């Protein structure tokens, strides 16, 4: 009973904090939060594949980048393109890429799946560097126009150079994406997806088609990764090979998911938060982010393979066992 009344209150509190966040914490932390929201969404999108279906991709940066480059190129070359269609183009670009790759990658699994993505990720990174006339090479595409968010006849909210307005746009889109992905895992299809992770053979014998199912999950994961990449590009008003397609862009959501716990939907979000704090701190004191991340990864795999949420769950179970045994003791005495 308690839980039922507390939950809406918590959500309301979260909403209030999100609305007043820029007022409360200032522009710097508002921007930090936007980065967090983007990478949290991205990590959840990667985990839809990794945690829910057991497919590890070492090249999701290509979707993140496809979203970013798609939107940036559209805004640069199409005059007068509105914001929402531009974001839509980024989303669709990533989705299309996933659709094209799906027939190939859903035939393999395990190590081969991971390595193929590593190779494709690298391929797109190289392409972005070399096809200079399209992508701007190492400099990337910068300072492209960012239209205002408009509903014709109603409102027009300028975004370029206005971090607070951008903050609201970003958290609405990211919040919506997270909700959609969450709902996705709760549909009958989402159940099949979890089934594939646990026992592919059985899913087959229940009458579900494996490759098609995997392909849909793959496309969903790719498309939302692209959406995150697209907002990221708009946020920085820059899309570049290193910023959107580099190997670390592929690895960081995996690390976040591992740290937070791949077994739960919200785990990657906690993981991203930890990741952000650590990155913020290490940046301040050293530039050895890679080294620190590597050490964290090793420690997590060796000592807490189910991540923060796994550790919390274990503690919860122990606490329940403890209180239960205590209650029993009191009863008998």
């Amino acid at each position, binding site marked *: 009973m308690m839980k039922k009344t507390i939950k809406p209150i918590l959500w309301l509190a979260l909403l209030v904090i999100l609305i007043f966040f820029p007022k409360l914490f200032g522009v710097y932390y508002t921007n930090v939060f936007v980065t967090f929201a983007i990478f949290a969404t991205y990590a959840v999108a990667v985990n839809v594949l990794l945690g829910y279906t057991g497919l590890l991709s070492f090249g999701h940066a290509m979707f993140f980048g496809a979203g970013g480059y798609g939107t940036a190129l559209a805004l640069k070359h199409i005059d007068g393109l509105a914001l929402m269609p531009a974001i839509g183009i980024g989303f669709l670009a990533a989705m299309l890429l996933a659709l094209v790759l799906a027939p190939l990658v859903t035939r393999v699994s395990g190590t081969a799946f991971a390595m193929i993505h590593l190779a494709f990720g690298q391929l797109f990174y190289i392409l972005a560097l070399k096809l200079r006339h399209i992508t701007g090479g190492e400099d990337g595409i910068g300072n492209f126009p960012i239209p205002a968010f408009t509903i014709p006849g109603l409102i027009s909210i300028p975004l370029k150079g206005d971090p607070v307005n951008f903050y609201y746009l970003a958290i609405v889109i990211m919040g919506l994406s997270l909700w959609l992905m969450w709902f996705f895992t709760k549909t009958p299809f989402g159940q099949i997806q979890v089934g594939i992770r646990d*026992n592919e053979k059985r899913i087959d014998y229940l009458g579900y088609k494996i490759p098609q199912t995997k392909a849909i999950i793959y496309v969903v994961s790719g498309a939302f990764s692209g959406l995150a990449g697209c907002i990221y590009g708009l946020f920085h008003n820059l899309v570049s090979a290193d910023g959107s397609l580099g190997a670390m862009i592929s690895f960081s959501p995996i690390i976040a998911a591992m740290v937070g716990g791949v077994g739960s939907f919200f785990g990657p979000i906690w993981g991203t938060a930890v990741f952000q704090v650590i990155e913020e701190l290490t940046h301040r004191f050293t530039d050895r982010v890679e080294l620190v991340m590597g050490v964290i990864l090793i420690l997590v795999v060796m000592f807490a393979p189910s991540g923060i949420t796994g550790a919390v769950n274990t503690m919860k179970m122990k606490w329940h066992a403890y209180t239960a045994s205590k209650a029993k003791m009191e009863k008998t005495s």
Partner: protein
Amino acid sequence: MNILETKDLHHDFSGLKVLFGINLQIEEGERHAVIGPNGAGKTTLFNTITGTYHPSKGKVFFKGKDITGYKPHKLARIGMGRSFQITSTFTRLTAFQNIRLAILAKHGIRFNLFRHVDKMKDITRETEKMLERVNLINERNVPAGLLSYGKSRALEISMAMATDPELILLDEFAAGMSRDETHNAVALIRKMTEGKTVVIIEHDMDVVFSLADRITVLHYGKILATGKPDDIRDNQDVKDAYLGDLQV
């Protein structure tokens, strides 16, 4: 009418012959046991029928239709279900969610992305009814991986039956069970398969003789004998196959 028939079925693993011309006939509505010493090819026969392997020669017929080479998901959709020798459930899903997946499959709900599955009342009700029938309702919210061995075997069997297939193949369902658990499982299968056709592979002779209407004995990839339990018990070839050609 035979619901399942194999004609001259052969299978080999890269040259190693496992099945030599199996002509199996399963009558509609019967409970049929396939027995035989280790390495006789029983599980291979199951796997060849249910689409894990493609037979190197021969055909499989289901309700008169040639289904040779059908993939497992296709066989499931036309009414064939199976369980596995090694428990094959979704370990991180609860017993409820396991059964629900089978129920969803039964209703052909596959690519539904627009409804919250917990809010599908009919499915929930049907799943709970199934859990009650197989005595797993108290374990409703326990992840399958944490069930006791007997309970997880029961879940394994009920998943095969929850899709409501016309023909159910059970591969050593009593493997690793204690006496009591075996006894319960036999009762469960009797109850759940009323009016259905069941084929079992089994080593436990008590189970075989208490369940089967007819028995087929496999030996070195060939059918040695088929018949009523009493005939099989008295068959000299079968005795020899089990004990070696021993004269005591």
